[in-house]
């Protein structure tokens, strides 16, 4: 295992220390239990947004703390949901009197830990609504699974709900817009290589040099199926088609296209994927009116990418365009 780390046991804490030092104008850290909040604390009268989850997906979530997006982020150990004793104080810190929206990616661990934390925060008198993101079309049926996973589409939920909170929507309205984004966003991902969790020290799965995993999550899990390496255009089609089909995109609809890197794939390749995904969308008559390309929801140093499509309407587009000032997303 080759990483720029010291003792793997300190990886998350040291990384957060660096992050907070680099972005002291945006985020401040609380330690023991560890979580990060927007500098200046909760905004009185506005809904707070809290998200969190295992580490290893950077810049998610701490990179999205700031004006127009999250109020607080809670990092767990690598690929391990944080604990209620971290999440609850984050929920309390995010409350400016108008309640807090918890944005939770759909994994058993995240859901359960947030559940407990929300109960505890409510017991302290904070009103909390929860939206669980589950945009991963690789996981089809919650009868046979723990349900769809929350993956890169979570960024869209956080950005747009953050903008709704910023413009002063009440908790029910912010939660409704978050749910609306989640209902209209779909993602599918591919891994060219596995990733290595620091304390494990070896790759999350063994993949021959000429094979790739289609339908991966963001925790170094193997995907739904293993196929021979193929040209980018073909791989992109394997990702885009199920996404667009599941969304039921019809001709003329406006969409946001997000091509997300898994951490170890160069930007130049993400643009090759973007190019083809966009062509395929246009082939279906969809109109790509907003785009985002880069590493936003990663799996450590995994090579690979995911393709996310969000169906837009005037409201969502306006909220997407609203100013945001975080370490990883800013306009």
């Amino acid at each position: 295992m080759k990483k720029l780390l010291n003792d793997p046991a300190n990886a998350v804490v040291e990384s957060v220390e660096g992050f907070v030092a680099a972005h002291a104008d945006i985020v401040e850290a609380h330690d023991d239990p560890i979580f990060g909040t927007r500098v200046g604390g909760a905004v009185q009268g506005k809904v707070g947004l809290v998200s969190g989850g295992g580490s290893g997906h950077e810049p998610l979530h701490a990179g999205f703390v700031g004006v127009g997006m999250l109020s607080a982020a809670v990092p767990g150990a690598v690929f391990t949901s944080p604990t209620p004793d971290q999440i609850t104080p984050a929920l309390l810190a995010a409350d400016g009197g108008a309640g807090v929206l918890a944005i939770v990616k759909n994994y058993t661990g995240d859901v359960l830990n947030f559940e407990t934390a929300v109960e505890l925060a409510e017991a302290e008198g904070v009103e909390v609504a929860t939206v669980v993101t589950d945009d991963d079309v690789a996981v089809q049926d919650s009868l046979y699974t723990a349900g769809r996973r929350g993956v890169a589409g979570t960024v869209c939920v956080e950005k747009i709900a953050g903008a709704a909170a910023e413009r002063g929507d009440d908790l029910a309205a912010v939660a409704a817009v978050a749910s609306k984004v989640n209902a209209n966003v779909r993602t599918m991902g591919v891994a060219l290589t596995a990733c290595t969790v620091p304390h494990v020290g070896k790759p999350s799965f063994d993949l021959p040099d000429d094979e790739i995993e289609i339908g991966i999550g963001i925790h170094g899990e193997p995907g739904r199926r293993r196929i021979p390496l193929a040209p980018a255009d073909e791989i992109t089609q394997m990702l885009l088609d199920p996404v667009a089909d599941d969304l039921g995109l019809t001709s003329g609809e406006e969409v946001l296209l997000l091509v997300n890197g898994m951490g170890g794939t160069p930007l130049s390749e993400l643009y090759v994927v973007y190019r083809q995904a966009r062509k395929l969308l246009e082939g279906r008559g969809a109109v790509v009116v907003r785009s985002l390309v880069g590493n936003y929801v990663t799996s450590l140093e995994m090579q690979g990418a995911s393709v996310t499509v969000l169906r837009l309407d005037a409201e969502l587009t306006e909220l997407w365009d609203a100013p945001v000032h975080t370490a990883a997303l800013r306009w």
Partner: protein
Amino acid sequence: MTADVAWASRWVHETAQSIADHRDELTELDRQIGDGDHGENMVRGFRAVVAKLDALEEPPATVGEVLKLVATTLMSTVGGAAGPLYGTAYLRASKVADVTELDGKGVVAVLEAALEGVQARGKATAGEKTMVDALVPAVEAAVAAADSGGDAAQVFAAAAQAAQQGAEATVPLVATKGRASYLGERSAGHEDPGAASTALVLAAGVAASEAG
């Protein structure tokens, strides 16, 4: 013998030791069908439990107090799916163990409460390839052993053995709960890490009886 407070405390220490000894094994199981953190999660949790237990000014008065300390510590240090599930299991168990020692029936009650806790939180039934598949046969075996008059140690030993068999029996299953379910058919052929750790936890209770 009965399972008293000293036993409960030994159980915690034995568990921490056994989990640490099997860290890489649990991690490897989770790497196969999950995300490779189960060993580390459990080690982190039980290390914290032992530290808390050893730091207590006064020894716990009841078995339930020991179990509650385990519950709250796991909840605040483990994270992931295992944290809340084990946390709730120990919490529910602690509520039926407000005694200075458990007899055979008491052990049954503790294990039943633990299973109920896991199922209340995780909504898994038997056969979904989770820790429930270790706990369900454990409870059944415990009931049978208690019904035939077993003492706490005997009941616990029966439960532990059944849990171990239950864990091994998860190998051919296709997961429909937890992270392994994302793999669909590809989850078959591997033992569930949570079931494996549950078997270790119960085996540690047996070691604690024998050491007592």
